[in-house]
């Protein structure tokens, strides 16, 4: 197991480097100019100086190397300084956003809680809905419940979040006026009333994202439970005279969770991708919103950093899923 983890880590690192190179080159070889917005009255030699100040004058491999150093060496130092009140990063060049002229990571840290709060909550809700439905669908295969469940997960797959989100806004905000359509990120919870408002404004984005999660996890849970329900150990448990409840919750559920847990782990980064659109629909001031704003504003350092953070999440959660799978299922041997 340990050798497997080490081997996987050694594959993950070059993968990450290549991905960062892809992201970097895609953005840097593209025909656009951060100085395009600067007025034409600014003389060319001043423009050239401004370009150099942004670090654009150097050859591309040096830019890439500098960016890598900033991302993997200087930014972690900043985090370390912040946590332990040290001064390792003082005077070192951080990744600066062209849009706001402040370090990209500072903005990311400001935006991340909103995303995590909404996305994380929706993921938990989606899983909690999906697991019992999937299990019961498998237990009563081809029943009405099963067919309805399959249909609902089909809908969850087919209805894109930019429609389901807008649709619930039309119903609950415009027609009924029950829920706010825009997520207020400045809202802080201090008492019962503000808590109620927080719940109200979170209901719609969370449910829209949860529908997608539910659709996916439900299908996996159903097929995993179906596999297990036909196993011999279930028949043995029945022959022993255990109640159906015990058989389902103790034996089938626990064994079916093995593949489902890995799917849950693998899907975490993709939820951030889906949140990109949901954040746009509900105007949640999160990290996806920041990315899209940066894309519109041609803010390369921010786009690079956030895109690469997504890639980093994908690679690490894939790794995590493999490790969990090996730990949960003793039949799996990697070496």
């Amino acid at each position, binding site marked *: 197991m340990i050798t497997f983890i080490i081997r996987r880590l050694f594959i993950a690192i070059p*993968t990450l480097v*290549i*991905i960062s190179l*892809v*992201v970097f080159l*895609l*953005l840097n070889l*593209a*025909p*656009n100019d951060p100085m395009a917005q600067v007025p034409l009255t600014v003389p060319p030699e001043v423009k050239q100086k401004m370009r150099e100040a942004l670090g654009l004058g150097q050859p591309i491999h040096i830019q890439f190397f500098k960016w890598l150093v900033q991302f993997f060496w200087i930014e972690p130092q900043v985090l370390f300084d912040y946590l332990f009140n040290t001064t390792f990063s003082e005077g070192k060049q951080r990744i600066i956003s062209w849009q706001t002229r402040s370090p990209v990571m500072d903005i990311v840290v400001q935006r991340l809680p909103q995303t995590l709060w909404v996305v994380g909550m929706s993921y938990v809700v989606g899983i909690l809905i999906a697991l019992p439905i999937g299990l019961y669908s498998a237990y009563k295969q081809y029943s009405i419940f099963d067919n309805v469940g399959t249909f609902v997960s*089909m*809908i969850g*797959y*087919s*209805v*894109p979040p*930019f*429609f389901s989100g*807008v*649709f619930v*806004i*039309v119903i609950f905000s*415009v*027609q009924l006026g029950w829920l706010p*359509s825009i997520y207020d990120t400045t809202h802080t919870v201090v008492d019962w009333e503000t808590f109620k408002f927080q719940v109200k404004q979170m209901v719609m984005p969370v449910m829209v994202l949860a529908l997608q999660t539910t659709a996916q996890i439900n299908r996996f849970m159903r097929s995993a439970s179906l596999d297990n329900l036909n196993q011999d150990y279930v028949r043995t448990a029945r022959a022993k005279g255990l109640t159906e409840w015990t058989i389902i919750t103790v034996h089938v559920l626990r064994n079916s969770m093995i593949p489902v847990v890995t799917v849950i782990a693998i899907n975490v*980064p993709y939820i951030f*991708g889906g949140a*990109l*659109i949901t954040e*746009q*629909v509900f105007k949640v001031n999160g990290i996806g919103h920041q*990315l*899209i704003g940066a*894309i*519109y504003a*041609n803010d390369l350092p921010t*786009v690079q950093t*956030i*895109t690469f953070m*997504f*890639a980093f999440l*994908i*690679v690490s959660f*894939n790794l995590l899923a493999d490790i969990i799978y090996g730990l949960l299922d003793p039949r799996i041997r990697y070496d």
Partner: protein
Amino acid sequence: MIEERNKERVGSLYRDVWDQFKKHKGALFGGVVFLLIVISVIVGPFLWPFEANAIDIRSRNQGPSFIHPFGTDQLGRDTLARMLAGGRTSIAVGLCAMALTIFLGTFIGVTAGFYKRLDGPLMRLTDLFLSLPLLPLLLVMMLLFREPLSSAYGPERGMFILIVFAIGITSWMPTARIVRADVLALKEREFVLAAISSGSSNSLVVRRHILPNVLSPILVSATLGIANGIITESALSFLGLGFPPDFPTWGRLLNDAVDYLQQYPERVFWPGLCISLTVLSVSYLGDGLRDALDPRMRKR
């Protein structure tokens, strides 16, 4: 004689698939709905008297009426005409992106499965692509290559090429993996060994013996590819990074309707419904095809 018998057997195989497919109610329904949508967006613009971009400012913001069954938008353009024209683009993008996805996926999958030397590198490449954050990269590609392609091929055609190409190169990976796995299994089968040992060239073996046998996973990924293409195009248009504003697609119409959400909430309904219905029908179609093409999946 032998050829005749072969023909008969081929016919009966497809008949068998069709029989199985017919039994799957959802798939049949999905197929019919998808076909209806495709026919109506192809034929509809010829029959419907209003142009998608004809501005009639006097009759703007109308509700549903006999002349405009879906109403008109803020410039007095007929919503039904725009829906039909938008559907044309959305479905065309879905089909073209699917074709590119399938081509790339099959090519890489067959190459990796058939040539042992290329297997490792190609599969690492697939893993790498699977680790890329696709939606952000798609957005970035839209932003960066929009202008050069627009100036080279005109705003609409340039955007079409860009979107199809971008979707194609970001969604071939699952197809490639499935096809590779099937090819690896097929390569060890006797009829392929026989074909190789009787001196058939590699390309003949692939065309004659491998490709027909991996057709079923390819068809299933094709249906998924259409759904994926339509959803991705709508998402890009919805985020404002798709087709130009005056060029209707379902995602674009939905995006335009969101601006008038408070005044005319019913406008978001039609494009959203069309996207969802198309994707739902295609997914059911794919489900039925998978069951029909794979005898092991059938309910006994």
